[in-house]
Structure formats: structure tokens, C-alpha cells
């Protein structure tokens, strides 16, 4: 099950969000050695905010995360407009109907190979379901050489935004994916997904003080 966590309902997902930031620290800082800041074992960057939408696949609403990803609105500063501007030949698609997907994070102990490919497929299906729900037309993302072919071949329609940067395994490249029902059907078919994966749990009613 992939939980959609937004400003509206994040209050009931503090445990999951904290676990996600902890996994991001373990994966991006400890394992992949990205130069990111951490505090008290959590990786939180300038783009983490109430305005981001998090997709968190977990065993329960309180823990057991298998994979997570972050969706950022693009009508304000986001990674592609600030950090990765060089990867785009023209100004990247942005605006109220475009999201940027970042921080695709399999759990630190996730098995490599096929299980990770399936995780990416489920997260892409989750991104498409959520984007359709919110009326989003396009999703941009930056992918490494390892991830790019898998993401590109998932079944959604993808276009490169530039030739990329770096060589071999260190190459990174920016892409934009089209969000439509046909694409979602193809992704689901490719990954044997028979039903919607995402759930949106509304905020709890306010408690009496």
C-alpha cells in the first residue's frame, strides 16, 4: 500500500515521515555518499516542506517502509530549477500542472536487482495515480545511469530534457514523463499491478484540547 502524504494529512503520518527521513539518511548519505546534510539521523533538505507530497509504501500507517519518493510542485523553486538547471537544454516544464519527482528511496536493506525494479514500477504507478488525482499533466525527474533506462522503459511516455552530465555510472540526466490513463495502464501491465496502489487517508478530526 502506498500512502499519499500531503499537508492536509501529514499530522497522522509523523511516524512514517520520520522513518522515511531516517531511511533517506541511511541510503543517500551512508550508502550512496551523497553530500547532504543530516541532523539527529534524519536527512531533510530545503525542499522538504508541507507543500511536498510524499509517496510512502509501508506495511502499516506507522512503520515498515519499503520504498518512498517525494513530489514537489514546480511553480516555485525545485531541484531542476535550482540545482540541476544545467541538465536542461531549454527551461524545464514547470507550473501548476507539473510536478518534480525526487528522492526515490528503496529501504536501506532492500534487495538489489529485480525487487528494486518492481519497487520503481510501483512508485511510478503511484506517482501516476496521484498525479491523475491531482490533475497533474507532467512529472519531471533526474535519474542516474542505473535508474534512467528502468524508469524510461516503465511504460509511461518519457522524453529527455537534455543530453545529461557525467560519464558511465556517474551520468545523470533530466526527463519529463507524460501523465495519462493509457500510460498508467501500460505501467500496471508491465509490473503486474492489478489494482490502484495508493491510498489517501483524510486528516483526523481535530481533537478536543
Amino acid at each position: 500500500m502506498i500512502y499519499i502524504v500531503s499537508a492536509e494529512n501529514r499530522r497522522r503520518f509523523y511516524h512514517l515521515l520520520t522513518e522515511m527521513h531516517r531511511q533517506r539518511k541511511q541510503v543517500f548519505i551512508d550508502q550512496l555518499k551523497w553530500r547532504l546534510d543530516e541532523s539527529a539521523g534524519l536527512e531533510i533538505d530545503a525542499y522538504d516542506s508541507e507543500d511536498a507530497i510524499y509517496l510512502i509504501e509501508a506495511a502499516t500507517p506507522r512503520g515498515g517502509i519499503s520504498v518512498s519518493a517525494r513530489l514537489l510542485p514546480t511553480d516555485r523553486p525545485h531541484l531542476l530549477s535550482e540545482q540541476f538547471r544545467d541538465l536542461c537544454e531549454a527551461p524545464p516544464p514547470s507550473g501548476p500542472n507539473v510536478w518534480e519527482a525526487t528522492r526515490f528511496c528503496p529501504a536501506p536493506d532492500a534487495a538489489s536487482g529485480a525487487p528494486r525494479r518492481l519497487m520503481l514500477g510501483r512508485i511510478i504507478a503511484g506517482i501516476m495515480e496521484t498525479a491523475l488525482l491531482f490533475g497533474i499533466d507532467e512529472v519531471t525527474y533526474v535519474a542516474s545511469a542505473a535508474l534512467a533506462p528502468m524508469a524510461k522503459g516503465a511504460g509511461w511516455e518519457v522524453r529527455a530534457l537534455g543530453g545529461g552530465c557525467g560519464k558511465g555510472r556517474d551520468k545523470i540526466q533530466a526527463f519529463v514523463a507524460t501523465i495519462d490513463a493509457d500510460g498508467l495502464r501500460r505501467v500496471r501491465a508491465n509490473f503486474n499491478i492489478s489494482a490502484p496502489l495508493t491510498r489517501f487517508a483524510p486528516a483526523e478530526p481535530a481533537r478536543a484540547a
Partner: protein
Amino acid sequence: MPAGKLALDFIDFCEKQADASMIEDRFVATLNALGYEHIACASHVDPLRPRPGAVSIVNYPMAWLQQYSAENFAYIDPVFLAARIMTAPFNWDEFLSKMPLDRVQKRVLAEGAAYGLTGGMTIPLRSPDVIPASCSLVAGADGVEPLDLAHTLMVVIYGHGAMHRRLNPNALVEPVVLPCRERQCLALAGRGKSDWAIGELLGINERTAHNSIERAKRRYGVSHRVQAVVRAVFDGQIVLDDLST
């Protein structure tokens, strides 16, 4: 109330409040509002017998504190040991997973967990106190908003400083400054050298070496040279490297 407002209101309150106990209450209330249920902001000593002038705010369950005190857990608790060597806030689970724990340490952690003291975070505090201090926080059942972490750290670090200042209004005294010769002699005394050996090493009279150390003792107001060495190490005029041969 947003975390930023809670934190700024707390700092504003500290600025205007002279009474340390009022700041303590507000400190606990602010951290409660940020989602933390258990708070221990103290020096690393027996929580039921704090040193005079030391900040000690602990709202852990009393039964646990009594057991902690009776069994001298302060000398065993791996979280305390971790807080001593860590320079930045850390998450218990992450640190403990990398630390070799003995049977007794595992028992302390398991018994604390039975009181709900699990999955916490500790913020090491650099305090002008001889004993290391830290603030440990354990979230309540609903968890805490990860984006509020920076504001939580602000409350803890500022609050600890404010309470320390209120509890020690006369703490700001003239710092001791050792002249070069006294510092050299004291460092050699700290390496176990006699007055005669210090004189030989520095090419000065044995009597001069002795008098330099006596003057350093008077500056610190202590009666034994070992005490003067410890004080000089603590206030940074001698570093531990000076003492190793």
C-alpha cells in the same frame, strides 16, 4: 501553533524571565507541544542527586528514576556514554546499532524501554559544567513532525543556556590566564616530572620551576598541583596532548 512560533515565543519568554523554575516549566511545556513526552535535560550524574547549580529537568517516570539512581545506571547507560563522545544530535537506535553493547547495557536499555523510553534522540550540550550534559527527548504516541527538528534543537540549546545562566548568576568571573612559563611547568608536572626534571627540561632553575607551579596553584585557588593540572586542562590552557609523552 507552528513550531517556529513556539520556539520564538519560548526564547522571548527566557529573555524576560529571571526565575529558572519558570523557564523549566515553559521548557517542558514547549517540548510537550512539539510532541515530546519524556524529557531529560541534565548533567550525566544520578538524576535524583544533581550537582548544585546544574541544570536538571527530568520528567521520566519516577519509578524508573529511582531504579536508575539505586543501580547507578548513570555509569552504565550507553546513551550517556554516546552523548559524551558525540558532537551533534543523534538518534538512539542508529547510534546503538553501531555500538558494541554488553549484557548490563542491554538490560538498562530494555528496562528503560519498558517505561516507554525508546527510540529517542539526544542532543549533547556543551556546558561550562565539569560533567558532560545532554538533553534526551522521547516522542509521544503520535510521533513528532520531522520538519520541526530544527526548532526543537533551538529550544533545547537556547533553553539549557538560559537556565544555566539563571542558576549560576555569579558564574562569570575573571578567567585564569597562565603566563607561558607557568603553563609549560604545569604541563610537565602533569606528565609526572619533578621540579628538578622540569628545570632540566626547560633549562631553568629547579626553584624557578617550583615557584611557577606554586603561582599557578594560587591563580586557581587550589592546594595541590594535580588540582591545578586538572583545572588547566579543563579550561583549555593545557591540552591532553601536552600531557602525553
